[in-house]
């Protein structure tokens, strides 16, 4: 039997772990999610470095990433060959694709020209790293495109069965319930940027036509970062160059034998060369000799160029349309927009986990700098009063993880009635659905009863709603449930002052 390399076993295990955690990143009957796919980001050094540069602080949430960096310095770029789920998917999906020839344009220092400007942009407080982080790319493609598609396909099949079988479909319910409760997304939400997210992912796969692990060796900023760290590794493959009598490694090696000499910063330690070496020459050894002439360190030109372009990048993306800002609602607990952008990884986990599908990736609402960051669209979904899941799964605590009673008091925005639309005002018809749904125990939407003449002149007792600003947390349920078609009679608007509601607004806390 053919021996399966340990790297391959590790890859598969981590891929399974990744997918399990991905599916677990959803409300499954418990208020807390103990393990979510955010673990992968917390061990992601690219996320760590950009967080530190942008927020200019450290968070213990990212300790695993620090450890990962330390191990990479010790062992090399093993993450890419052993752990990275995107790398594994590339290996699995594209193994059979015959490669034509490497694209010249991707060679050279392109990946560093991607990595360093991103790092400098972070230093200037605009953290764009998440756009190109491989794990974020993968999760976004799954969350926005593949998972909803999968969920919708199964769900439509289930609905179709009902059309065919009617109530006798009930015999199959236990099976479907099992799928629904453990595998499917509960709601089939469709997201903006779904296509873009999928495209980016597919493009990475498409690049495999030209060269094995093309993304990983030529573009991936996480890979480039790990490669630089791995340069200091004491763990070495010997011999460090192709043997003149064999040269098989040039074919076997997925990343690092572009030339005669092993490109150490690209070696992902898959150890295929060790297994396949016909003369058992290849060894991986800890040596006391870290110096590696072939490894790349950014030169002065690179640093200066990146500094300038990073600065430019961090400024030119800042334009925001003012009219969109008034409806720019961030997830609960986010108080400072700038701070939020410094920390957000744009991974899409908050949007995936959101109970009521209230969160969607920004397209241009938050300017170019805010692409893929989450925003709440109340007409599509509201923030569930007792739910704290988005804060729990956020890898960098850009959305803070708050205890339920604190989260309920955080202000997302404030509700405002549009009296030209709202039924009791505009049409003299009673409605009050918004007041009914307002979750604040003291009711942030209240009403006064007034006798008035309706549009036909008849005397009616009108119940006219109004908002109590001090009690409104902007959850958006009122806007969500407003029975008017199209534009709601009540809408949530963004506010600067996000001081939490006073504790007495949630009186049952006193108990």
């Amino acid at each position, binding site marked *: 039997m053919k021996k399966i390399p340990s790297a391959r076993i590790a890859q598969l295990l981590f891929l399974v772990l990744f997918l399990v955690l991905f599916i677990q990143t959803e409300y499954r009957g418990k208020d807390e999610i103990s393990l979510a796919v955010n673990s992968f980001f917390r061990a992601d050094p690219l996320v760590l470095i950009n967080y530190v540069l942008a927020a200019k602080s450290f968070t213990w949430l990212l300790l695993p990433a620090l450890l990962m960096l330390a191990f990479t310095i010790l062992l090399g770029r093993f993450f890419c060959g052993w752990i990275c789920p995107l790398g594994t998917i590339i290996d699995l999906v594209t193994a059979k694709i015959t490669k034509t020839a490497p694209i010249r344009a991707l060679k050279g220092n392109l990946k560093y020209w991607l990595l360093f400007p991103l790092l400098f942009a972070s230093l200037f407080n605009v953290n764009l790293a998440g756009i190109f982080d491989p794990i974020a790319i993968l999760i976004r493609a799954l969350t926005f495109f593949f998972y909803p598609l999968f969920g919708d396909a199964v769900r439509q099949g289930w609905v179709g069965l009902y059309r065919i079988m009617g109530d006798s479909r009930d015999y199959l319910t236990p099976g479907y319930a099992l799928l629904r409760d453990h595998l499917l997304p509960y709601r089939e939400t469709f997201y903006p940027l779904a296509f873009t997210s999928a495209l980016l992912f597919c493009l990475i796969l498409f690049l495999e036509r030209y060269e094995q692990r093309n993304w990983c060796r030529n573009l991936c900023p996480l890979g480039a970062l790990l490669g630089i760290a791995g340069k200091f590794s004491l763990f070495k493959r010997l011999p460090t160059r192709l043997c003149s009598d064999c040269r098989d490694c040039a074919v076997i090696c997925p990343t690092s034998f572009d030339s005669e000499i092993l490109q150490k910063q690209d070696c992902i330690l898959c150890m295929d060369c060790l297994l396949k070496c016909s003369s058992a020459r290849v060894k991986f050894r800890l040596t006391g000799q870290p110096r590696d002439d072939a490894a790349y360190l950014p030169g002065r030109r690179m640093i200066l160029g990146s500094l300038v372009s990073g600065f430019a990048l961090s400024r030119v993306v800042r334009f925001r349309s003012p009219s969109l800002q008034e409806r720019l609602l961030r997830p609960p607990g986010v108080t400072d927009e700038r701070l939020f952008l410094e920390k957000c990884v744009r991974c899409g986990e908050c949007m995936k986990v959101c109970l009521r599908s209230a969160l969607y990736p920004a397209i241009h609402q938050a300017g170019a700098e805010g692409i893929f960051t989450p925003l709440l669209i109340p007409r599509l979904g509201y923030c569930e009063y007792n739910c704290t899941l988005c804060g729990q799964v956020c890898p960098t605590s850009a959305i803070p993880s708050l205890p339920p009673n604190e989260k309920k008091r955080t202000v997302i925005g404030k509700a405002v009635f549009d009296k030209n639309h709202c039924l009791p005002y505009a049409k003299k018809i009673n409605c009050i659905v918004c007041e009914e749904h307002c979750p*604040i125990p003291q009711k942030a939407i209240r*009403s006064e009863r007034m006798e008035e003449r309706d549009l036909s002149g008849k005397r009616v007792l009108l119940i006219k709603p109004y908002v109590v600003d001090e009690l409104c947390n902007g959850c958006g349920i009122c806007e969500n449930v407003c*029975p008017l078609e199209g534009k709601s009679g009540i809408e949530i608007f963004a506010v600067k002052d996000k001081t939490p509601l006073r504790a007495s607004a949630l*009186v049952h806390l006193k108990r």
Partner: protein
Amino acid sequence: MNRRMFLAIAGLSSFFYRSYLRDLSAAEMPVVAVAEGKEYEKITVKAVAALGGMKRFVKSGDVVVIKPNIGWDRRPEHAANTHPLVVKALVEEALHAGAKRVKVFDRSCNDERRCYVNSGIAEALKNMKQVELKYVEEERFKKVLLNGTALREWELYGEALSADVFINVPIAKHHGLTRLTLGLKNIMGVMGENRGNLHRNIDHALADVNAVLRSHLVVIDATRILTAHGPQGGDLEDVRITNKVIASTDIVAADAYATTLFGLKPADIGATVAAYRRGLGEMNLNRIRIVRA
């Protein structure tokens, strides 16, 4: 006819009714059973027993739908959802009476997964055989011709329509628009489409639906009632412990009696009046036989 006129006629006619027809109709007065106590399962069973027991409604092999209020993501003590023990007692009774299957569901306002868990009903019905606590599925709604005064047609839930026995189990609580929400309003949980639209003419709309989808048995959970900030509350200050369960086959009579727990008169509740006028039941307390169970 306006309300004043109606009350005058209703009052006068009751005078004649009383004098001449009383003996004839005494046997047909609707019965409202009221059981009181701190053990909610027990009083639920007692209230139903006072009406003749569950066997009167459920025959062997029946499919029974129990429709509690599970509308809100609130815990039992908040008095926003039907008490889990009341639901559990009814489910067990239905099973004892020989039900083939008991289905429990509601079209929740908050996230249904959270509502089912937080209401305590999921836990109360866990591991019970032949019992399904299920989520409402969009495809099961069916357009039903109501030919009512407010609604011509509306989507109603297939499983509620096709059930052999439909047991309506509301909780008695305050509501901003209808003042109270009781049995008649609880029927909204099996209605599809944009229910917010109903609010424009809700009293008649509820009568329209209740005229078509009749509750074979109404059990009102008044173990604790929400007296303000309904229908979802959240403040324990608004909750009053009343330790009562009310049961009747007459939905209007059950609602009428429950209204008195809030210090209101049945005529104060528009939905009750509309349903009474439609002939769906009796709202005059002096023409309802109240049985202490």
